[in-house]
């Protein structure tokens, strides 16, 4: 494997990485908004419920960034990148399967809806959001071939994933909740993440075959 072929093949996968970063940005915000819906029957929809959800999302993303950045140091590849998406898809499933049971138990255990909603948010959203947070720095690593251009590439990546977040917020709050049930939306998101994983892993395997 020579350096020029590596950079050429990575370059060809750039649109895919950007597209997948867009998808993860979209889904992070869609899940965050649905979080309000999921918690409302148990904790209401007061400002502190949103406070809990946003706190947990910010916290999970920040930790995800840290871990994703670390992981990008060791043999970054589209294969591993795809595993993040697969993991995120699986980690969304407890929201559909067990959220009511978890909230039922915590509603009884914790009387104060502020701490009840905070603990529930941690249990439900921490893992999937942290994993989706890992995607951003890892994407930067996959895209950067020339350190001089790293700022430019990071900018393009943030642009893409944050645009995804903006559209995920808009689509969910304006339309998706009007057309579909919460669980239908969540399952669709998990399915999209699984397809994203397949795309990344498939592309990764093809590149490996070409260059290897």
């Amino acid at each position: 494997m020579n350096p020029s072929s590596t950079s050429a093949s990575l370059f060809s996968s750039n649109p895919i990485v950007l597209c997948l970063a867009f998808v993860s940005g979209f889904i992070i915000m869609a899940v965050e908004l649905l979080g309000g819906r999921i918690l409302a029957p148990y904790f209401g929809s007061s400002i502190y419920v949103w406070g809990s959800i946003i706190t947990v999302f910010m916290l999970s993303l920040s930790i995800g960034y840290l871990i994703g950045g670390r992981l990008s140091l060791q043999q970054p590849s589209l294969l591993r990148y795809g595993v993040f998406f697969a993991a995120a898809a699986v980690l969304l499933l407890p929201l559909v399967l067990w959220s009511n049971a978890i909230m039922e138990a915590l509603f009884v255990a914790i009387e104060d809806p502020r701490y009840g909603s905070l603990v529930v948010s941690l249990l439900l959203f921490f893992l999937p959001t942290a994993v989706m947070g890992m995607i951003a720095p890892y994407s930067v690593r996959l895209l950067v071939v020339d350190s001089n251009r790293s700022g430019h590439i990071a900018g393009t990546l943030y642009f893409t994933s944050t645009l995804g977040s903006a559209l995920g917020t808009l689509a969910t709050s304006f339309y998706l909740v009007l057309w579909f049930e919460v669980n239908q939306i969540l399952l669709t998101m998990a399915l999209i993440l699984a397809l994203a994983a397949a795309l990344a892993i498939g592309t990764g395997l093809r590149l490996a075959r070409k260059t290897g």
Partner: protein
Amino acid sequence: MFRSLFAFALASLSLGLLAPAAQAQSGVLRTVHQERSLYRNILVTEDDERRCMRFTITDLNGQNQSCRFYDDHDKLVFPYAKMVLASLMVQERPTRILIVGLGGGTLVHTYSTLFPEANITIAEIDEAVVGVAKQFFDYQETPLIHSETVDARVFVKRQGLRGAQYDLVILDAFNGEYIPEHLMTAEFLEEVKKLLPETGMVVANTFSTSRLYSAESNTYRQVFGEIFNVRMEGTGNRIIIASQQPLPDRATLESRVSALQARVARFDMDMSEFPALLNKNADWDLRERVLTDQYAPANLLNN
């Protein structure tokens, strides 16, 4: 002339708003108190005849939450309160009452006057509303009347776990610009139903227009079976009455009017108007989806 202009202004207001329709105002409107709470702006306004609580600064005519006349605190300003009282024809003597949404405390005043022995609990999410009701509308806590600053969904669920029972639950939390969507779902109504004894009744002050009218009607029907739908001209509100018992027929309602009239006359109410308005028939779109915790776009449906 002024009245007809005003009626026109009212008619042209967004019909989706649930605020009680204001009646003709007299004199200059003064704002005597204004504060911003966690949830809304609260204004107290006065004109020559009455004092009102409202939750928004714009749209000064349509958004009164609660009003009362200076000269007669019993006299009900808005049709919706009278429509709620019409439910006395269905259930005559509630002794444990839960009211969701305090506002200016009109319903608390009315029910505590009618039933001085009744235990009245109010779930009001906004502490500031309770403060304003105390300061400007003579709302008072007593050994029998107390309010909890709590989201009604949380309160109802907890009371259900504790096995609390209420003969009458009045849902009066749906006003104006934002509807608490988690208080409109079938699951919430099931939780409310758990609080009702065999003779219990729910009375909800809600919406009479938009797709939400149909969605909500279908939701109540799914949970309670038959409902009375009470609509009146000149108001954007409608009242739903649902009971654990079979609803009485027209003749039974009529037979209860005269005894009740003596008790509600002081509220400037004519009970004989209402048997004809308690309607079991569906005049809405039966195909509109039932609202659930999974599907609760009440605000979007109300656009």
